[in-house]
């Protein structure tokens, strides 16, 4: 390998490149050269091939694509001579991973090298398998590797590699090792004298016991022996001591293995172990040499973990706490970091809380450390150690830190502060203070759950109401306040502002003025809240204030024609209501109390804490086999709950409240839910009982597919999910039937967006699968269930979606013949251990294959007449039609690309329309339709549809019928109203009734 001049020259050339461009040119030249040589096998000497493969690895390290050379690297593995073979093995294990198909080509050679007699080849093959071997290797090679590991004729060199190679195979396939037959061998291996083999074998053991500690119980005393040999007797060759410490790594491994056994029952083993541990705890001094210090503390911290795991005698535990207390105050950052980390773990052990509290001020100092790693540990610890006695101090520290914390920590911080404030509030006014401060300091990072919760508290605690109102009023005086603060203070002042009436600056009209100043700067979702507040202020104004009334009416008038339905409806209704006197008072009466429920914030936090409570064993056991990906998710050791995600409302035409309310749809088991608690009653009229029956009724039913004409031929949206779907799947589908991009599905972990382009009878959809989390989604599977009339091709989706990543999966659609059937996407994924699956209708509906076309009367009528009657032209009287004015009906037709041709029909109550339909069987075919309406009864009409193809005529007629009966207003699908509220003075279509709380007002009037 010495003297590969060409390689050195190439590296020098690269180093001399002045810039990236020059480097690229040089690399391209070299790659061209390599390609040519690889093609011309005859002139390629083994030496040259070896040189080129090394160059490829170098180029690969520079970040260039060398996929073309994978084959060459793999083929060198079968070279007969060591120099080439070695390059083949090493470069292959750098360039390829277990998922590459090429690797299978080498499997036979690798096996022959493993079972062959050439020790050097054995080593190369074991190294390759150990580093990149996958399941294929695990299945075929494990017995051979086991033989090598226990062979008495192999050198330690081979055996240590065999031990780790076997570890890899076991991780890939735990069945590769049969515990019954192997446990005794494993125990024997731990008697090994050679420390290289022993270190590797102990690593193997850690993995084995994490999977099944019972089978390997005979190894437990052996681990204690190893520790005695190293830590007590110092019985190791000089070369295995590191700065005078007998292999710290082996000591750590042996103690790690012991942490997978639940207890140590044998008294003498236990005694020996505790002697060793005691020696480590007491005998580790701080020394000057950094490396020695680190190594001895590596052992010490592992010993601490083991002591905590064994839940040792009180005396030893308090020794540990004392040590940790010392560590968290040292200057050396690594030790301080580990002190904080281990103290957090220590919290799981009872009885130490009080001792840890003594260090509170020290821990708070670390919260201000310049190193974010230390700050994170301090935050975790403070969060863990907080209780009623210290909550005030800790939360106030967190609030203070919030203003200076980096953005990446603020969301976690504010959530933690909010949870602690709620959990341990000594008095409720303090809780209100904290949340308002949170919103003030870090509004962007305060999720909606947090402010909803404070509103719940205030509503349920009368004593708190005047205080909360005056606090809210104070914040309004600040010049720039966060929008969330506007929301929460508007809500509170609307409800309880009148309690402040006697205070200066707090009359209804003054409250209105100061709130109204904020209105120009808030976003659409906040305006409805302000309008409700205005209505309430107006009602509470005592004595009645005609000036105020004028101002507020002017606002309502202004928004009466607002494009946002929610705002428009509130404006119209409040305006009307406010003229009604007594009825106004009834409707706008104070909000009823919320049912007492556990905070969803705390619930979430507790769910996470449950996992954190698991013993180190479980934690590690869960983690060990997860070696699939860098991104694979270990359990968080901190009690940090995942950040709460509140879905954005952008891209949806629903009003934010209905989004929010339909967001956490409990499928199956209704879970107490914050958002529905809060937002339900935001509709200002209902008593709590009404709220749940009238409003939650239909919402709860939203997860179930509603009747959509006759088109739902497949078991759509049959939810086996254990997750809460965000938004309404059916509504999303309906919206996507009329537009070409949007969200198809969303839950807390994944969002599936869709984007479509249609040309004639073909379409190209792209599914965007976005992982919303910081851990990967695994076992992602998508399957298309195509109806007979569509040809669909879905590009495969990768098995794993990395954290926060989005993958795209194109779906090619070809329309063969007219049909209203819908394709269904069957998709599933795993989040942690949770399997989520759903069946989603794909919006490749009949109307997507229509192209608008506008016909003149000269074009229309001859064709119309040429279609004489059934089956090419079908007529039907459709009843139960949603009443629509003609212009609205025209808009509806245009929205599914059946173009209204104005003025063609002499009768002004009729509409004629045309479109071109594309499919493989029909080609481009003109479709014509006529709708005759009855001005006296808008719920029925006569529909005539004609085209040159009987199936098309029938399917299109049925399709139009579905649209007329189920009118998707905006994106909203019709949900049958729970109680047939008489649509008196109904400003909006009754479609809004079901999921729009404001709409229920109409029924009350």
């Amino acid at each position, binding site marked *: 390998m010495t003297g590969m001049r060409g390689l050195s020259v190439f590296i020098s050339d690269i180093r001399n490149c002045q810039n990236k461009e020059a480097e690229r040119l040089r690399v391209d030249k070299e790659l061209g050269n390599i390609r040519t040589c690889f093609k011309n096998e005859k002139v390629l000497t083994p030496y040259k091939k070896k040189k080129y493969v090394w160059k490829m690895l170098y180029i690969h390290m520079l970040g260039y694509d060398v996929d073309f050379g994978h084959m060459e690297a793999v083929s060198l593995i079968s070279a007969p001579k060591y120099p080439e073979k070695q390059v083949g093995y090493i470069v292959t294990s750098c360039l390829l991973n277990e*998922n590459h198909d090429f690797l299978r080509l080498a499997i036979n050679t690798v096996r022959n090298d493993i079972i062959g007699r050439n020790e050097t080849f054995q080593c190369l093959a074991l190294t390759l398998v150990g*580093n990149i071997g996958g399941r294929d290797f695990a299945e075929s090679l494990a017995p051979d590797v086991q033989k090598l590991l226990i062979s008495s004729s192999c050198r330690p060199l081979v055996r240590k590699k065999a031990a780790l190679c076997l*570890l890899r195979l076991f*991780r890939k396939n735990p069945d590769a090792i049969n515990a019954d037959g192997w446990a005794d061998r494993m125990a024997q291996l731990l008697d090994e004298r050679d420390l290289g083999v022993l270190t*590797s074998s102990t690593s193997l053991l850690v993995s084995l016991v994490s999977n099944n500690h019972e089978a390997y119980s005979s190894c437990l005393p052996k681990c204690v022996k190893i520790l005695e040999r190293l830590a007590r007797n110092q019985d190791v060759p000089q070369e295995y001591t590191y700065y005078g410490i007998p292999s*710290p790594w082996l000591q750590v491994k042996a103690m790690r293995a012991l942490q997978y056994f639940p207890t140590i029952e044998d008294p003498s083993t236990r005694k020996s172990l505790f002697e060793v541990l005691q020696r480590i705890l007491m005998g580790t001094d701080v020394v000057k040499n950094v490396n020695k210090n680190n190594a001895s503390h590596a052992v010490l*911290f592992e010993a601490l973990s083991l002591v905590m795991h064994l839940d040792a005698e009180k005396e030893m535990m308090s020794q540990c706490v004392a040590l940790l207390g010392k560590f968290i105050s040292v200057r050396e950052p690594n030790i301080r970091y580990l002190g904080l980390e281990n103290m957090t773990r220590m919290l799981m052990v009872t009885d130490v809380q009080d001792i840890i509290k003594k260090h509170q001020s020290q821990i708070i100092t670390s919260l201000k450390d310049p190193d974010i790693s230390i700050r994170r540990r301090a935050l975790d610890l403070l969060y863990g150690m907080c209780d009623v006695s210290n909550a005030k101090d800790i939360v106030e520290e967190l609030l203070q830190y919030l203003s200076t914390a980096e953005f990446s920590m603020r969301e976690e911080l504010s959530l933690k502060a909010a949870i602690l404030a709620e959990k341990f509030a000594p008095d409720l006014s303090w809780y209100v203070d904290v949340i308002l401060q949170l919103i003030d300091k870090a509004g962007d990072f305060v999720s909606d759950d947090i402010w909803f919760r404070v509103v719940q508290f205030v509503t349920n605690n009368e004593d708190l109401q005047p205080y909360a109102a005056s606090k809210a009023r104070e914040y309004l005086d600040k010049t720039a306040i966060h929008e969330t603060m506007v929301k929460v203070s508007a809500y509170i002042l609307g409800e309880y502002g009148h309690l402040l009436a006697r205070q200066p600056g707090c009359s209804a009209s003054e409250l209105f003025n100061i709130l109204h100043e904020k209105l120009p700067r808030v976003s659409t979702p906040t305006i409805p809240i302000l309008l409700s507040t205005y209505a309430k202020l107006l009602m509470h104004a005592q004595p009645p204030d005609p000036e105020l009334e004028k101002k507020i009416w002017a606002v309502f008038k202004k928004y009466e024609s607002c494009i946002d339905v929610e705002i428009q409806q509130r404006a119209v209704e409040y305006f009307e209501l406010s003229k009604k006197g007594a009825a106004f008072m009834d409707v706008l009466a104070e909000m009823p109390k919320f049912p007492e429920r556990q905070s969803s914030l705390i619930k979430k936090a507790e769910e996470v804490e449950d996992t954190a409570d698991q013993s180190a064993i479980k934690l590690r056991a869960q983690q060990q086999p997860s070696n699939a990906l860098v991104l694979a998710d*270990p359990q968080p050791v901190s009690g940090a709950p995942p950040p709460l995600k509140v879905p954005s409302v952008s891209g949806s035409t629903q009003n934010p409240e209905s989004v929010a309310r339909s967001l956490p749809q409990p499928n199956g088991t209704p879970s107490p839910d914050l958002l529905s608690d809060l937002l339900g009653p935001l509709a200002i009229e209902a008593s709590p009982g009404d709220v749940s029956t009238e409003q939650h009724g239909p919402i709860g039913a939203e997860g179930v597919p509603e009747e959509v004409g006759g088109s739902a031929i497949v078991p759509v949206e049959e939810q086996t999910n254990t997750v809460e779907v965000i938004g309404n799947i059916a509504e999303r589908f309906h919206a996507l039937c009329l537009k070409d991009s949007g969200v198809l599905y969303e839950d807390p972990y994944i969002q599936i967006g869709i984007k479509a382009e249609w040309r004639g009878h073909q379409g190209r959809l792209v599914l965007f699968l976005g992982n919303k989390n910081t851990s990967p989604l695994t076992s992602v599977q998508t399957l298309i269930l195509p109806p007979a009339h569509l040809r669909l091709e879905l590009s495969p989706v990768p098995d794993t979606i990395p954290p926060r990543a989005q993958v795209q999966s194109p779906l090619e659609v070809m329309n063969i013949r007219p049909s209203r059937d819908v394709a269904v996407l069957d998709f599933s994924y795993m989040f942690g251990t949770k399997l989520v699956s759903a069946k989603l209708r794909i919006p490749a509906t009949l109307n997507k294959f229509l192209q608008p076309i506008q016909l003149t009367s000269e074009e229309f009528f001859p064709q119309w007449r040429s279609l004489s009657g059934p089956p090419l032209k079908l007529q039907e009287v459709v009843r139960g039609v949603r009443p629509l004015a003609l212009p609205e009906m025209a808009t509806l037709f245009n929205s599914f690309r059946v173009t209204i041709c104005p003025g063609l029909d002499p009768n002004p109550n009729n509409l004629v329309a045309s479109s071109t339909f594309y499919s493989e069987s029909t080609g481009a075919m003109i479709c014509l339709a006529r709708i005759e309406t009855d001005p006296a009864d808008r719920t029925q009409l006569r529909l005539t549809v004609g085209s040159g193809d009987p199936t098309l005529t029938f399917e299109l007629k049925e399709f139009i019928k579905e649209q007329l009966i189920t009118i998707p207003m905006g994106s909203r699908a019709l949900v049958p109203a729970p109680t047939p509220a008489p649509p008196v003075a109904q400003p909006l279509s009754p479609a809004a009734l079901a999921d729009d709380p404001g709409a229920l007002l109409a029924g009350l009037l």
Partner: protein
Amino acid sequence: MIRFILLQNRQGKTRLAKYYVPLEESEKHKVEYEVHRLVVNRDSKFTNFVEFRTHKVIYRRYAGLFFSLCVDITDNELAYLECIHLFVEILDHFFSNVCELDLVFNFHKVYLILDEFILAGELQETSKRAIIERMSELEKLD
């Protein structure tokens, strides 16, 4: 276990990258970029540990070179930190007074040494002497 090892200079040039978990090429580039950004600006008085996605990176700087190991959250930090140092001592011994240029021009040897030191993401051999002797055995074969 060690998920990957990176050796990068201050400019972010990768001098050695070894992955013990299967990653796509594009993901590797991303990881290398992110890890470099994570460690390069950290003060020398800071800890040698940083959280990286759902794992943590144990890193150490030697002159202009950063040695980074990505390990599991529950792994023993200090043990891995000294594992880096042991690796550096081995390189130093092998190249007698190692510098970045040695690693650049002899990157293939660095991979060989690493394969004798770490396997399957676990420590294989902690005796400097054993590794150096093994390397001279291998050089004779070449």
